C-alpha cells in the first residue's frame, strides 16, 4: 500500500467512526427522525419519536460498523498481498467499494434487528390488502439498479474480451460488487416487506411503512451507485483509450463525471416525490392529523 491508499483508508475509517459516534448523540438521532418527518410531510407523534429514532440509530450503527469491517478487510487484503492492483487509483477504488458494500451489508443486517411488542389487551390495526416492494420503492429506482448493473457487467466483459489490461479492474470491481449488492437487495427487500407490522394505531403503521421505505431506498442505492460508477468508468476508459487520452486526463473526467452524478443523485434522493412515494401508494388520503397524537404532543 502506498501513502495515498493509507491516507484514503484512514480518512474513510475516521469518517465511519465519527458517524458511529454521532449515533450516540441523542440530538442527532432526534434531528434525523424529525427531519425525515418534515421531508415526507407526516407528523411524528412524541410517543413514536423514540422508536423511530432507535431505528435510525440502528441503521446508522449497522452501516458504519459494516463499512469499517469491510474497510479493514480491504486494507488487510492489500497488506497481505491478496490484492496487488495497478497503481494507487486501483487501491482507492477498492477502499471505496469496500466501504460502500460494507455499509449496505451492515444496514441490511440492522434492518432485521428489533421487534415491536404489544400488550395483548391493546387494540391492533393492520392493512387489509397485501403489500409488495413496489409499494415502498419508486419503480425507476429498482429498474435503474438493474439496468445500470447489467450494463456495467456487459461493459466489463467487453473490456476483458478486447484486452483493456489494468483499466478493466475498477470497472469489473464495481460491476461485480453491483451484482452482489443487487442480489442482496432483492433477497433482503422481500424479507423486509414480508415481516409482520404489529401496530396499535394508524400512526404506528404509517411510521413503520416510512422506515421500510427509507431502508429499501438505502439498500437499492448501493447497486444503483455501483452500477452507474462502473458504467461511467468503463465508458470513459473505452472512449479515452480509443481517442488516445492520457491516464491523468481520464482520471480527471472520471472524477468530474462521478462528482456530478453523486451530486445529482443526492439532490434527487432528497426530493419529496421520491421520499413520499410510499405515501402515494399506501396512504393516498393521509392527512397530517391522521398521525397526530394531539393531546400528548400538546403536553
Amino acid at each position, binding site marked *: 500500500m502506498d501513502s495515498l491508499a493509507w491516507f484514503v483508508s484512514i480518512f474513510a475509517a475516521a469518517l465511519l467512526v465519527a458517524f458511529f459516534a454521532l449515533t450516540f448523540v441523542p440530538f442527532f438521532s432526534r434531528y434525523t427522525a424529525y427531519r425525515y418527518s418534515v421531508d415526507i410531510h407526516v407528523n411524528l407523534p412524541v410517543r413514536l419519536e423514540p422508536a423511530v429514532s432507535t431505528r435510525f440509530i440502528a441503521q446508522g450503527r449497522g452501516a458504519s460498523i459494516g463499512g469499517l469491517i469491510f474497510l479493514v478487510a480491504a486494507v488487510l487484503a492489500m497488506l497481505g498481498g491478496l490484492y496487488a492492483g495497478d497503481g494507487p487509483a486501483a487501491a482507492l477504488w477498492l477502499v471505496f467499494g469496500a466501504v460502500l458494500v460494507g455499509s449496505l451489508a451492515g444496514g441490511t443486517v440492522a434492518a432485521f434487528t428489533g421487534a415491536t411488542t*404489544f400488550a*395483548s*389487551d*391493546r*387494540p*391492533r*390495526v*393492520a*392493512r*387489509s*390488502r*397485501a*403489500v409488495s416492494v413496489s409499494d415502498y420503492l*419508486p*419503480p425507476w429506482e429498482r429498474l435503474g439498479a438493474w439496468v445500470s448493473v447489467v450494463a456495467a457487467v456487459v461493459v466489463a466483459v467487453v473490456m476483458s474480451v478486447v484486452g483493456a489490461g489494468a483499466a478493466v479492474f475498477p470497472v469489473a470491481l464495481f460491476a461485480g460488487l453491483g451484482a452482489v449488492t443487487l442480489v442482496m437487495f432483492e433477497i433482503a427487500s422481500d424479507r423486509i416487506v*414480508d415481516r*409482520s*407490522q*404489529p*401496530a396499535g394505531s*394508524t400512526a404506528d*403503521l404509517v411510521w413503520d411503512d416510512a422506515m421500510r421505505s427509507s431502508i429499501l431506498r438505502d439498500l437499492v442505492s448501493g447497486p444503483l451507485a455501483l452500477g452507474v460508477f462502473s458504467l461511467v468508468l468503463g465508458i470513459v476508459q473505452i472512449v479515452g483509450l480509443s481517442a488516445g487520452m492520457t491516464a491523468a486526463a481520464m482520471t480527471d473526467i472520471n472524477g468530474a463525471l462521478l462528482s456530478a452524478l453523486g451530486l445529482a443523485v443526492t439532490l434527487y434522493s432528497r426530493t419529496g416525490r421520491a421520499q413520499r412515494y410510499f405515501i*402515494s*401508494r399506501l396512504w*393516498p388520503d393521509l392527512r397530517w392529523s391522521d398521525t397526530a397524537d394531539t393531546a400528548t404532543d400538546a403536553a
Partner: protein
Amino acid sequence: MLTIDPKSPVPPFEQLRLQFIEQVRGGELAAGAKLPTVRRLADDLGLAPNTVARCYRELERDGFIETRGRNGSFVSAQGDAAEQQAQVAARAYADRVKQLGVSPRDALAWVTAALKA
C-alpha cells in the same frame, strides 16, 4: 384498515369478517385486490392463524373473496355480471395508473371526463 379490539365482546373472528365485508361492499377493497397471507395477518393482528384462516374460508364461501392456489386470496367482483366486468376493468385501469405513476386525482378526473363524454 382492520382493527381488532381484544376487549370487545364480539369475537376477533367476527370483527375481522365484518370489517372485510364492509370494506368489500364499500369499495375500499376493490375487486382483484390481494389480501395479506393468513400468517402475515395473524402476526399483524396478534391472532391465531386458525382464526384468520377460518375468516378467509367463510368470506370465500360467501363469495367475497376467492383463493387462487399459491397466489393467495383476492377480492371477488361483486354484483351482477355487468357490475363485475366493470369492477375488473376498474382494477386493470387502477393498476395501469399506478404503473405509470399518475396521481389518483388525475386518474379520477380523466375517468370522470371520459364517462361524461
